[in-house]
């Protein structure tokens, strides 16, 4: 159990710097707080932040503007705001029911935008003189700015389907750049398995795209996966995308030919040409290495410990 907890921590640690970000990501920009700037209004009383926070009319506190010309300053320019009215002027001129409907519409039209995105991150052909392979990875999401339904799928195969999974998740924006997702993962190949899933998805400082997830299977097996990708914009349309993925397991899962600890590492380098931002064919190379028991399971199945493939594919979204 201790190991499980440790593993979960490792998996989430990839996204942790981003989560910790609101606290203070740019310590080097931190300087001592303002000591005594030349405030032209010095002497006028100004509520402290804590007093402002407890103001009954909180929402729009007064604040003294240090750049304001001093000559227009009245003796007291800091009256409290008036109470917030609850009536509506228009209700006096138009039927109230019509105004109630119109107000609801006004609300919807100013911030409640629903939208969807379907992204095919990889849809690729992997030529090979033994058996040509293929792989896909994509995600779709639906909803508003904060709460979204997320569907993910990935898989690969050669002569036959070697691996295929789908996830259905509830996603929630928790920081400016990161979403927390929770839901279910269903594997169809190589084994039928169901997992409980938590993941953290977003953009880290320096524009790294990160996704880290932990999976608890219906057999009690705990695994984790972390992905990172980066877009190197060579020209407006030519983009080089290095990509890395690590898979971890809490214990050996022979059924799935997965060994405990670091089970595999995948590195990709794809060069895509965005004919439109939504439509970008690519060529690249994908390298996969299995470690430890995972490598032994692979060898026993007649597979190599490492696998390097040329890939040709399409990245598209709508």
């Amino acid at each position, binding site marked *: 159990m201790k190991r499980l907890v440790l593993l979960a921590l490792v998996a989430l640690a990839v996204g942790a710097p981003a989560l910790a970000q*609101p606290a*203070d*990501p*740019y310590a080097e*920009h*931190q300087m001592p707080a*303002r000591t005594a*700037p030349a405030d032209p209004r010095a002497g006028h009383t100004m509520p402290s*932040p804590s007093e*402002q*926070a407890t103001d009954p009319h*909180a*929402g*729009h506190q*007064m604040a*003294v*503007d240090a*750049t*304001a*010309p001093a000559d227009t*300053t*009245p003796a*007291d*320019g800091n*009256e409290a*705001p*008036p109470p*917030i009215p609850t*009536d*509506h*002027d*228009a209700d*006096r001129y138009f039927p109230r029911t019509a*105004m109630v409907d*119109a*107000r609801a*519409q*006004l*609300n919807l039209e*100013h*911030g409640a*935008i629903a*939208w969807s*995105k379907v992204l095919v991150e990889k849809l690729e052909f992997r030529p090979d003189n033994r058996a040509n392979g293929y792989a896909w990875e994509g995600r779709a999401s639906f909803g508003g*700015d*904060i709460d979204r339904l997320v569907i993910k799928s990935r898989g690969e195969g050669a002569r036959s389907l070697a691996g295929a999974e789908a996830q259905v998740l509830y996603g929630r*924006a*928790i920081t*400016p*750049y990161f979403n927390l997702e929770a839901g279910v993962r269903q594997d169809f190949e190589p084994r039928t398995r169901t997992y409980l899933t938590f993941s953290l998805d977003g*953009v880290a*400082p*320096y*524009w790294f795209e990160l996704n880290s997830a932990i999976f608890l299977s219906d057999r009690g097996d705990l695994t984790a996966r972390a992905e990172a990708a980066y877009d*190197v*914009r*060579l*020209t*407006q349309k030519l983009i080089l995308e290095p990509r890395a993925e690590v898979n971890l397991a809490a214990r050996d899962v022979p059924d799935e030919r997965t060994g405990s600890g670091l089970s595999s590492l995948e590195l990709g380098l794809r060069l895509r040409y965005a004919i439109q*931002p939504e439509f970008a064919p690519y060529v690249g190379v994908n390298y996969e290495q299995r470690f430890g028991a995972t490598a032994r399971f692979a060898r026993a199945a007649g597979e190599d410990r490492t696998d390097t493939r040329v890939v040709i594919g399409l990245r598209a979204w709508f």
Partner: protein
Amino acid sequence: MIGRRRFLSTAAVLGAGTALGSLLPSWARSATSGAIPAALSGEDIALTISHAALTLDGRDGHGIAINGTVPGPLIRLKEGQHARISVTNQLEEETSIHWHGVLTPSHMDGVPGLSFPGIKPGETFVYEFPVKQAGTYWYHSHSGVQELVGHYAPMIIEPAGNEPAAFDREHVIVLSDYSFLHPHQIIAKLKQQAGYFNRQKQTVAGLLAGKDQTLAERIEWAKMRMDPTDILDVTGAAYIYLVNGHGPGDNWTGLFSPGERVRLRFINAGSMTIFNVRIPGLPMTVVQADGQDIVPVETDELQIANAETFDVIVRPGDQAYTVVAEAADSSGMGRGTLAPRPGMAAAVPPLRERQVLTMRDMGMDMSSMAGMEMDMSMRNPANAPQVKLGPGVPMIAPMPLDRTGERGTGLAKADHRVLIYKDLEALRPNPDPRPFTRQLQIHLTGNMERFMWSFDGEKFSEIVKPIPFRRDERVRVTLVNDTMMNHPIHLHGHFVELVNGKAADRQPRKHTVNVMPGGKLTFDLTADAPGDWAFHCHMLLHMHAGMFRVVTVRPLDAAQA
């Protein structure tokens, strides 16, 4: 031969003018002598809102038109008259008209769900208000995304007394942006991929060529997840920029006689575009801003943010001039011509190099604050206690500066005179000389990556409380821009006095004020209009994404039926 060529090109222009003529009101037609005769005026005016087919630079699109045209008809009123304007809705959706900058009673202001219920399909609504002011204004839909597809038009109100700026001829120049993509598709793209329309990002190729930021700067900005090329959300990649409803190829042309004083009434009816306007070879004397007379100031270029108006007077010689309205990110331009005779054209300058944003645009420029010690963390709640720090707020400007003395975005390197907010000075003393009794700070917040926009960290759809004012109180409001985008902020029903260093009674009065990225801007206002008013960013997709609030002024008058 020369005569023949001139005749042919004249015929070509007139031919184009005729083709467009049916789609354009007479004031906006090419090769016209001026706006004066072609306007709706008087006590009773009738407008109809309907769909229209547009042809822009030879390409067909769909629009929503007023009286069948985009832009709609020029309304010309006289200060002191009573206006009675009926608006009939021939669409299948609700519509409305807001009289931008015109002081009407709150229930005639035209914002559905706030001033009135909106105009349902097939219905006619009659707006009635006394005309209490003069100047150049405009009017547009406040429903859905209609304004993005053409539902806008100019309005001129003649002063009851003498016109302080003498001129011999005038042209209205409505600048706007049009996309053949449906507005809902534009919104979806922005939500799906921030920066979708930005095709001028920094690249490795640019780095190797020594363009834009240095490698060290790029790394520093990447660390903050900030893109210094994210200047306008929707760019020339999606927009065709229009001058009086004409694409650059259609080349709207306004005629003049050499030596005349020509008044140009510029109106930015663009949805998502800030224009930098110049007429190479022709200095402009700015005489009015947002319909309010100012002390004349001569310049070579001015920036006009969404919904602003500027009136200028020019004295052209016997030659053609190009009117250049370049998007602030230099991704495209609107183009028109001033000429003594139809068929003439002047050189069209190329688009200028796109400028990158700087640390000042993030509210983090330390160089100007030498000797001061500041807290420079990028998201310190202590810098904005009232802001809700959710996923929509990645940044609180640590050190926002008053930027009214700076050139607008894209103009730092222009090698001629550029109008700045500090140049504006009211021509006549402002009506209310009282000092302010209350102060208020409002933060303009947003997450460019998620395309979320708000005031104080809360979208209007989150059911936020109104911003309350006491009737007739004087309030000093400071807007702090915690984002790296310009936000032209419009308060309905009022003029605000921009605190720009001019004497207190000569601060320019505006209906829309552009707050530069990472900057702050202060205005004084007299809350003299009882009722409920919209307060919002006039980047229309910022407004639709949530950058909207209701302002209340109480007590109300007794209701009049």
